[in-house]
């Protein structure tokens, strides 16, 4: 049995390579080949500007279509006096996966966005066969289109240059016209210079409630390189909330894409798409606006996956310390907050959760959970490592025990963790992940966990659109087992993961049947010629059920 491998960045938070204990996880070994030369910076200088503590995101995607995933990381860049974004400082960084190591290719790809980087959304928005990138900034957002691995800033032309403070974003084809639309979660109208203190009068970061919430935005892709803001007509613009996380999925089983938005201190939104294409917030009615106690929580990261293997999408939201991370289990038309019985509540109360991802780490057929933690209050001076250290918290990995129950493993990372992105970085069949740390190095974790058996990864292609089928659902049946997975790059916190449906099969090697529900709601069945491989399926090549 092998181990989970952590590769921390070249520079640790105290700036002293090799002087501290390497980060560890129970199943860990070091693997220096995946080191990323990246240091997240915010420009913090003791002025307590809210953007300083929100961190950044990571995206894992195959930017150059060479069959392996590359890595893109956002970086901060603040004018410490005014709290406004600055362009004179660190930029976002892009790393190309070259034969088993990440090489800095920021300059040659054109992805060195100078804004104050928050979230990343990845998708082939122009249907030309390669993946484009939307950068959600504190400041003006940016949209980059990809041509053979080189990116061009199309912000102006596309109409996607939102200003203010965007957090997470996700591409989705909400109207089924074959073009990827865009949802952008918006946080607060931040104003620098407001002084906030703790109960004893010591300066501290203001909470989000001090600033006005911003309505989220939905953009329709016209298919000609431009987008139309449809927030108002779609109903999305009616929501009030300080949004940090978003996931697009079919919440009510009508084969239309819905949206779940995690808000920081406000009721969450579940935008359910109606027959006429408009969205109505049904979060309260379906039991996912508040926690079980009817309280709003500080929603950060969010995911929608079948965590209890009953065929329905469950929701999981990470929260502030003193709150639980919340597990909303799918129960017919509604959801139930079953955080307590799941084992996910108690362990999370002391910690502030941000990034999260659901991956079958040990390939036993059940989705495990990754949660990245790191505090947000108490103030730190970047010059003083000791005070900064107080923000560092252990991250969590929850093993899925089946039946909606989880068991925790915590691991100690070097940083104040925020975004998490997943993909099979080393192409060995299981999911690995990257943690984006605040004011610190990014960490690449290579999964070599004690694996339970076989696997199958499915990539779904839309030939007419020349792109992968983001938003498709893949169902694998065999040996009395039925497993559902979504193909989605979004979810989590500020991050974007690889779009693949990965199935852990355990010891199952028998005959299997694969069904794909395409983003427009149509369905096809495919043969499974073998396992322990990546299976490519194309729309039109299967049979109608």
């Amino acid at each position, binding site marked *: 049995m092998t181990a989970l491998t952590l590769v921390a960045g070249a520079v640790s938070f105290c700036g002293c390579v090799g002087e501290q204990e390497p980060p560890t996880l129970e199943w860990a070994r070091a693997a220096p080949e995946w080191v990323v030369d990246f240091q997240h910076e915010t420009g913090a200088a003791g002025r307590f500007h809210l953007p300083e503590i929100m961190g950044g995101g990571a995206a894992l995607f195959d930017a150059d279509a060479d069959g392996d995933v590359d890595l893109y990381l956002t970086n901060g860049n603040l004018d410490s006096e005014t709290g406004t974004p600055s362009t004179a400082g660190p930029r976002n960084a892009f790393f190309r996966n070259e034969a088993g190591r990440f090489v800095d290719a920021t300059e040659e790809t054109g992805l060195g966005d100078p804004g104050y980087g928050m979230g990343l959304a990845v998708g082939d928005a122009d249907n030309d066969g390669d993946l484009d990138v939307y950068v959600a900034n504190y400041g003006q957002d940016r949209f980059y289109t990809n041509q053979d691995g080189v990116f061009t800033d199309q912000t102006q032309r596309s109409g996607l240059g939102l200003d203010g403070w965007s957090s997470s974003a996700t591409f989705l084809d909400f109207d089924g016209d074959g073009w990827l639309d865009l949802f952008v979660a918006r946080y607060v109208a931040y104003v620098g210079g407001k002084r906030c203190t703790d109960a004893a009068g010591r300066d501290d970061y203001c909470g989000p409630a001090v600033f006005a919430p911003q309505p989220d935005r939905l953009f329709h892709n016209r298919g000609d390189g431009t987008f139309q803001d449809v927030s108002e007509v779609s109903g999305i613009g009616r929501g009030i909330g300080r949004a940090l996380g978003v996931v697009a999925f079919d919440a009510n089983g009508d084969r239309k894409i819905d949206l779940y938005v995690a808000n920081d201190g406000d009721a969450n939104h579940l935008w359910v798409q109606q027959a006429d294409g408009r969205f109505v917030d049904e979060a309260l009615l379906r039991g996912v606006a508040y926690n079980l106690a009817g309280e709003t929580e500080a929603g950060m990261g969010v995911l929608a996956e079948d965590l209890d293997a009953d065929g329905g999408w469950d929701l999981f939201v990470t929260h502030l310390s003193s709150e639980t991370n919340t597990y909303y289990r799918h129960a017919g038309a509604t959801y139930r907050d079953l955080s307590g019985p799941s084992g996910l509540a108690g362990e999370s109360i002391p*910690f502030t959760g941000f990034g999260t991802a659901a991956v079958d780490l040990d390939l036993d057929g059940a989705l495990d959970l990754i949660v990245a933690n790191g505090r947000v209050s108490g103030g730190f001076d970047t010059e003083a490592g000791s005070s900064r250290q107080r923000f560092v918290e252990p991250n969590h990995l929850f093993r899925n025990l089946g039946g909606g129950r989880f068991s925790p493993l915590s691991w100690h990372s070097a940083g104040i963790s925020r975004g998490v992105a997943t993909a099979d970085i080393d192409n060995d069949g299981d999911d690995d992940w990257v943690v984006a740390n605040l004011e610190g190095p990014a960490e690449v974790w290579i999964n070599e966990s004690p694996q339970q058996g076989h696997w199958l990864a499915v990539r779904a292609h839309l030939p007419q659109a020349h792109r992968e089928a983001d938003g498709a659902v893949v169902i694998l049946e065999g040996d009395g087992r039925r497993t559902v997975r979504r193909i989605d790059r979004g979810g989590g916190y500020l991050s974007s993961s690889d779009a693949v449906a990965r199935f852990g099969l355990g010891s199952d090697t028998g005959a299997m049947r694969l069904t794909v529900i395409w983003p427009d709601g149509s369905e096809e069945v495919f043969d499974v010629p073998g396992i322990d491989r990546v299976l490519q399926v194309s729309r039109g090549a299967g049979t109608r059920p």
Partner: protein
Amino acid sequence: MKSPSIAVPALLVVGVLCCAGVAPEIDTTGMEPPVRELIEARRADLNAAASAETWGALADALLAHGLNPEAAGCYAHAAELSDEPFEWLYLQALAAAGDVAGMDAAMTLLRRALELQPDHALAELRLALLLQRSARHEEAREWFELATRHDPDLQRAWRGLGQTRLALARHASAIDALERALSADPEDAAGWSAAAQAYAAGGQDEPARDAARRARRGRERAGFGDPIWDRHVLQNGVSAARLFERAQRALAAGDSATAREHVEAILRSRPQAADAHYLLGAIEAGAGNEREAGRHFERTLELNPDHVRALLDWASLAQRSGRLDEAQTRIERAQAITPLDPSIVLALAENRQRAGDLAGVIQAYERLVELRPGSDAARRNLAEARRLFDER
């Protein structure tokens, strides 16, 4: 594997040891001067004469300013030295529970307190809330039931009882408890939210939708009336943040003199505190001193041009004195800051109505219907405005 729960007993032990013998050293770096002075004075009293009262008084000052672990240790000493330790144990539990690692210790302390005063509804409620927070719903339900039995007027206990019954999938009895809670506080958003889920789970779709609507319109309650907390902790808060809280509480209770006293104390140490100027304006407005109120709202807006409440209250004063154009400007400014706030759209409608601008009224109500599509009142008002407009 690191287990955070290891820290639970440690918190209590460390707290006790830090206070043994003499007053503990407290790091007051960065604290506001009144807080520092209060803590130092209480330490001096304790060093002069150690007793349950002096340990407790220091603990009160510490807890009032968020120094929970230190406060917990000092309360432990107060409880040891006291012949009637119930309140010290109770407060020690609250101090321990303020730290996320101290919840188990807090529950143990509350059980000890309840051995001394078995029917104390507040202690039962506090224990139930901690159990609920720990997802121990069956135990929480039992304690909520005891609290409602010993104090049937304890609204928070009825709501908690409903919530835990909901968690235990006892939908009918959850609705009973929630209806009791909501009859006592019809604006309790969390109560309506739980009721919506309980109705929906029981297949009662229409009541569920109605409850959901009321939850959206309701208010989130930060806490509940606790005379022990108020006497020991709230009354000892001297930082600007705590004084502001005390001023708001006093104002809500109709005690504007005390509210004014607290706000003036804030402004002595922080004259640039926009919220304090606003509160002073609200106090003056409540006393009918509109000129003074307007002056304070102006000052608030000088310090924070985006202060929405000051903009709206200033507009309200202007409206009353017939300066409708000025009111309009301020309301529009508030709307630009928070364009989705229905109360601002309502203010806009009212101002247009006073100005006799029916087209403006219609426009405002159209916006309100967009923001609140489920509001029958908004639709009725829009229809009435349109009818009047057509009649003209």
